[in-house]
Every structure is written in structure tokens, then in C-alpha cells.
């Protein structure tokens, strides 16, 4: 991107920001706890001053322990929650514009945690068609899209089946296809792998990586599994509603102490590399994969 952005005046800077696929400005969200009589007993600031910018085609990961505000943040990107302070722009559109809500939701599709609770229809292909049906896409176009999307998540052979007979990973792939069928520019996965077994988790990671690389979709992966973020372009770590750490996976994993403070643990392989490094072996402390570690050890 243009390096001269820094030297531009504020207005152009703002224009640039709105050109990003996802952009939040000093985003904060508060919700209030009430007692039985409806009196506010506590105001919780779930997110507090988050600035995130995502370029079209990026693969971003947002890491955080339970209660770090990462899910609340995700719901802002889809117009499911509105900011208390600050603003969210999706493809240049402010999410608080009610009349553009459908455009926002179509541009940034969201996959949720529980595979069972986001499949609406009794037949796989009809479920994938649910989004386009809501958008008023013509019948023949829906059928074409559904087939394309099921192919891109490799579920086309299940299209006439009932979702009840699928595994968790397969159901999540159907849910991703359901979002893809709305032709989004960006997919947000809100802990979409948290309820899956390791095989299902791998399936989903493979699927979203290929969507990112082949279809050039922007991916925002929200998770607390460190292994899943190693392939991301950029990582944000959230703690108590704030961005505590950001950088490439390599940069982030190097900050072991800070991560521990955020109640996160680095991937096993990086841990091993750091231990080896401490023991005096010529291994860097920011290894991300087994192959990389092996390559280092062979020298």
C-alpha cells in the first residue's frame, strides 16, 4: 500500500481508512448488568478503544482468553451489536446505518461457534441457499451459487442429506458455505472451531486457508487456539477489551511473558524451540512449525 499515507493530512487518512474492508476506530462497547428490579448494578466495558484495520484479502487472527471481549468485538463487525463509542466501518459503510444493515451483513459474513444452532434447514443445500433466499437472489442463481459454494468447501456430495447426519466439522463447512453463498468479501469465524474435535478443526482450518488463498476472501479468525493462528498474516491479542499485543504470528509468539499474562499459551512446537534455545542449541525462539524446527536442527 501507499507509504505516503503517514504524511497525508487527517482527511485523506480518514478516506483511506474507510477504503479498508474492516476498520474500527476507537471502538468501545459497554453493557450493563441489572438486578431483578431492573436497576443497573454494574457497567461492564467489554471492549475498550480497539483500533483494527484489515486489508482486502488478509488473513487476520484475533486471539484472546475467555472474557477478553473478542466475541463482543466480532458481533460488531456484523451489525449484531452497535458501538457505545467509536465506529466500525465495513467496506466503508458505518454499521450503525440501519438502511445499509443488510449490505454490511452480506459483506462480512459470520460463522458462529455451535454448528447445530446455525443451520436452519433440514436439507444441506437448502440451508446454504438460506442467505441468498433472504437477499432475494433469483432462483436459478441461488442453485448455481449453492453448488459452487458446496464445491469450494468440498461438501457437494452431501447436498441432499440432512445436517443431522453430518459430523461437527462437516456441519461447520456447510455453515461456511451458507455464508459464502451470500458472496461476502470477508468471513468472520467467531470461535468456529471451539466445539469441534481435532479432525474437524483441521478440516475447517484447511477450508478457510484455501478460501483465503484461492478465492481471495478476507478472513478474520477469532479463537483461543494458538495453533490456528500460525498461518495468519497478522495477529491481534485481546485482553480485558483492549488490544494487548499485535504483529505477525512470529512476533507475537516471541512475547511469551505477555501472552501468559493474557492467559494464553504459545504452541507446543514454539515452546519446545524456546526450551531448546534456552538450553543452548542454535534454534530461534520463534519457530512456528515442526518442519521449520527440523530444518533448524539439521544445520
Amino acid at each position, binding site marked *: 500500500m501507499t507509504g505516503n499515507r503517514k504524511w497525508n493530512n487527517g482527511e485523506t487518512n480518514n478516506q483511506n481508512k474507510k477504503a479498508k474492508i474492516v476498520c474500527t476506530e476507537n471502538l468501545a462497547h459497554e453493557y450493563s448488568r441489572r438486578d431483578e428490579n431492573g436497576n443497573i448494578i454494574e457497567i461492564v466495558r467489554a471492549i475498550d478503544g480497539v483500533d483494527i484495520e484489515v486489508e482486502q484479502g488478509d488473513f487476520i487472527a484475533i486471539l484472546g482468553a475467555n472474557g477478553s471481549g473478542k466475541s463482543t468485538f466480532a*458481533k460488531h463487525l*456484523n451489525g*449484531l451489536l452497535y458501538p457505545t463509542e467509536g465506529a466500525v466501518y465495513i467496506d466503508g459503510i458505518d454499521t450503525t446505518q440501519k438502511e445499509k444493515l*443488510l449490505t454490511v*451483513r*452480506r459483506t462480512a*459474513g*459470520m460463522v*458462529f461457534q*455451535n454448528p*447445530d*444452532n*446455525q*443451520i*436452519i*434447514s*433440514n*436439507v444441506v*443445500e*437448502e440451508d446454504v*441457499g*438460506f*442467505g*441468498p*433466499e*433472504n*437477499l*432475494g*437472489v*433469483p*432462483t436459478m442463481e*441461488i*442453485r448455481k451459487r*449453492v453448488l459452487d459454494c458446496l464445491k469450494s468447501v468440498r461438501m457437494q456430495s452431501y447436498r441432499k442429506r440432512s*445436517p*443431522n*447426519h453430518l459430523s461437527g466439522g462437516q456441519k461447520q463447512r456447510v455453515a461456511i458455505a*451458507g*455464508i459464502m453463498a*451470500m458472496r461476502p468479501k470477508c468471513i468472520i469465524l467467531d470461535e468456529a472451531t471451539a466445539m469441534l474435535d481435532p479432525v474437524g478443526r483441521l478440516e475447517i482450518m484447511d477450508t478457510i486457508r484455501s478460501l483465503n488463498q484461492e478465492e481471495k476472501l478476507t478472513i478474520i479468525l477469532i479463537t483461543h487456539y494458538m495453533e490456528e493462528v500460525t498461518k495468519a498474516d497478522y495477529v491481534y491479542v485481546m485482553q480485558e477489551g483492549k488490544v494487548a499485543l499485535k504483529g505477525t504470528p512470529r512476533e507475537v509468539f516471541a512475547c511469551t511473558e505477555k501472552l501468559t499474562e493474557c492467559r494464553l499459551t504459545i504452541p507446543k512446537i514454539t515452546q519446545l524451540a524456546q526450551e531448546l534455545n534456552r538450553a543452548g542449541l542454535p534454534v530461534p525462539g520463534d519457530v512456528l512449525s515442526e518442519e521449520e524446527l527440523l530444518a533448524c536442527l539439521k544445520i
Partner: protein
Amino acid sequence: MIRDITIGQYYSTDSLIHHLDPRVKIAGTFLYIISLFTFHSLSGYLFAIAFFCGVAALSQVPFSYLARGLRPVIFMLVFTAALNLFWTPGESFFSWGIIELTWEGVEKTVFISLRLILLVLGSSLMTFTTTPNQLTDGLERLLSPLKAIRLPIHEIAMMMSIALRFIPILIEETDKIMKAQAARGADFETGNLIQRIKNMLPIFIPLFVSAIRRAGELALAMDARCYHGGKGRTKMYPLQYRLTDLLAYAVCFFYVGILIIFVP
């Protein structure tokens, strides 16, 4: 497996009747049920039976399956038959103690039982040949004129299809909760009726909580997929009449016409 349960009694084959538009089947069944009350002669019954047998043969649903549809109404059948048999006044041909049989009673019993049987068989033939989803779709389209008087037809149909999707999931969940409670020493087998109902409470409360939580998540997921009611919605598989559907309508009306005009 509990997930394999089928709702309703759909019998899956590839027959002409199965491929008919659900609206034809719903309207046809309705017409057939009404037609059963338009005659009171033997020829009428024979004609109605012949029509049913013709459709049943076309549907390729085995007769043993169709007969199963009668099971829930056996008690009612026996009860009405007995009432008619013993309490119809007329020319007596057999009497033993207080029991008195009349020719009129026998005739009435046979006809009323036939009418009931045809009624049940006719409507179960529809559920045997139409999936619950198709039924919901068909009902939504047939009832859509009622939207004019502000009845939420689309919403009701959406609720029905969501209910159909979640029944197996909730059944499985009930099973899980029952096992979890049994593992904590809950007892569902002993005690009198009231005791047992009380013992079910630890199943129902978690089940309701989870159902409500699921509903909330589902609503979010539907929002995220741009659901905003029935307005401006298109269908992936819209119901469309084909030639066979129109022919089927013609056959139904032909049948009712003959019954009304020629059969006393």
C-alpha cells in the same frame, strides 16, 4: 441411532404421487375428505374406495404401511361401530338379553366405519407421500392469501420448519440430560405417577434452558444471514405447477363431480 428418527410417516419411493406438488396433495386430500360426506349409498362407497385404491396403487406405498395409519384410531373405530351396532332402532333380527341387533344398525355400522377408515387412510396417504418440509411449503403457499388479513403465514411456516429441524436435536439432548441425571442418582423408574412426574423436573428445566439458549443463537445466526421476514424473499426451489399437477387437479375435480352429480 436417535438422530435417525423420522418425523411423520414419510415413505420414500419415486412414485408419480410423490412427485406431485404438495399443494395438489393437500387440496386433493381436503376435497376427498369432503367428498366422503356427500353420499349415502353403496355405489358411492364403492366409488370412493376404488378412487382411493387407484391413488394408493399409483403411490407405490405398500398396503401394510397404509394400514399402519389406522392404528391410532382403532379404539375410536371400535367405539363408534359398537355404538351404532347396538343402539340403532329398527327391524330386529337377533336378540340376546339386552343386546339387540337390527339390519339398520348393521348397515349404518358398516358405512360409518368405512367412512372413518377412508378418512384416515386418505389423509395418511398424503403424509406417506409428502415430506414434512414439502407440507410446510405447500401450506405456506396455499394459505398465503390469508396474509391479506395480517395472519403471519410466512412466520408460522418458518416456525414449523425450524421445529422440524430441532426435534431430533432436542430428543438427543433429552437423552443426554437423562443419562447425566441418572449418573447423579436421579430415579425415573420407580414411584407412583405423581412421584415420577416430579422426578422428570430435573430433565425439563435443563432442556428448556438449553432450548431457549439455542433459540437465541439461532436468531443471531439468522440475523447474520440477512433474514428479515418473508418480504422480498426468493426461493431456491419455488413450488411450480407442472402438467402432471394440473392433470391431478382435473382428476380430483372429476372424481368429486361424478360423486355429486351421479351418486345419491
